[in-house]
C-alpha cells in the first residue's frame, strides 16, 4: 500500500507551486492557473484523508470543490476578458484603476 503521507507531500508541493504562481506571476491567466493548481492540491489532500479514514464525505467535499472551481474559472476568465477589452492588458500590475 502507498503511505497516505506520500499523497500529502505531493499535495503540499503542488499547493506551494500554485501559490508561487499566484504570488509571483503578473499574467492574470497564469495566476488563475495557479489557483486551479492550489484547488487541486486541496482536493488531493481531502481524498487522501478520506482514504485514510474510509470516509466518503471527503469525496463529496472534493466534488463540491470541483464544481466551485468551475464557477470560479468561468467568472475569473470573464473578468480577465472584460479587463482586456477595456484596458488592453492581462498584466495584473497594470490594473490599478481603483488605486487613485
Amino acid at each position: 500500500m502507498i503511505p497516505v503521507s506520500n499523497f500529502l507531500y505531493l499535495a503540499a508541493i503542488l499547493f506551494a507551486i500554485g501559490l508561487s504562481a499566484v504570488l509571483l506571476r503578473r499574467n492574470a491567466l497564469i495566476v488563475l492557473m495557479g489557483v486551479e493548481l492550489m484547488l487541486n492540491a486541496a482536493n488531493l489532500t481531502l481524498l487522501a484523508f478520506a482514504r485514510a479514514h474510509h470516509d466518503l464525505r471527503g469525496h463529496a467535499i472534493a466534488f463540491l470543490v470541483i464544481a466551485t472551481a468551475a464557477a470560479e474559472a468561468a467568472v475569473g476568465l470573464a473578468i480577465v476578458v472584460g479587463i482586456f477589452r477595456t484596458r488592453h492588458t492581462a498584466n495584473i500590475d497594470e490594473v490599478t484603476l481603483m488605486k487613485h
Partner: protein
Amino acid sequence: MNPVRATVEIGPQAGMASGALILFWVFAVIAVAGALATVTRRNAVTAVVCLVGTFFAIAAEFLLLYAQFLAVIQVLVYAGAIMVLFVFVVMVVSRGEADPLWKLQGPVTKTVAVLAMGTLLWRGWHALRSFQPARIDPPPTGFGTVGGVGQVLLGDFLFPFEAISILLLVAVVGALVIARHHHDKDKAAQP
C-alpha cells in the same frame, strides 16, 4: 496465523503494493513537472497544455486513492471543460510577456519572502511529519464509486449539493454579463 498462510498473503500483496508505489511516483513526477512548467512558461498556451498534463496525472493519483468517480470528474471537468475555457481565453487575451517572469523589489522584500517561505516549509514539514496514520486497510466495497459518493452527496450533503447548482447558474449568468460585448454603448457612440 501459520507462517505458510502469512507468506501466501504477503506475496501478491507486496507485489501489488510496489507496483502501486511505482505508479504513484511516476504520476507524482509528471504532476510536479507539469506544475513547474505551468508556472515558469512565458507562453500561456504552453502553460495550459502543461496544466492539462498535471490534471491528468492528478486524476491518476485519485485513482490510486480509490476515488474512481472523482478521477473521472477531474478529467471531465478540469482537463476537459475548464482547460477548454482557458484555451479560448488565451486565444482572446494572449499577448507575449516581455517582462521578466517575476521580480522582487528591494532587499527587504526578498528577506521577508525568504523568511515567510522558510516558515511555511518548516511548519508544513512538521505538520506532515506528525501525521502517522495507522495501517491502512483496503477500503470497503463501494468506496469511491458513483453509488457510494452519490449516497453521501444526496444524504448529508444535500443542501450544499443544491446550493452548488444555484452557484453555477449565477456564475454562468455573471460570466456572460461581464464578458459580453457592450453593443449598446457602441451604437450610442455611432451617429
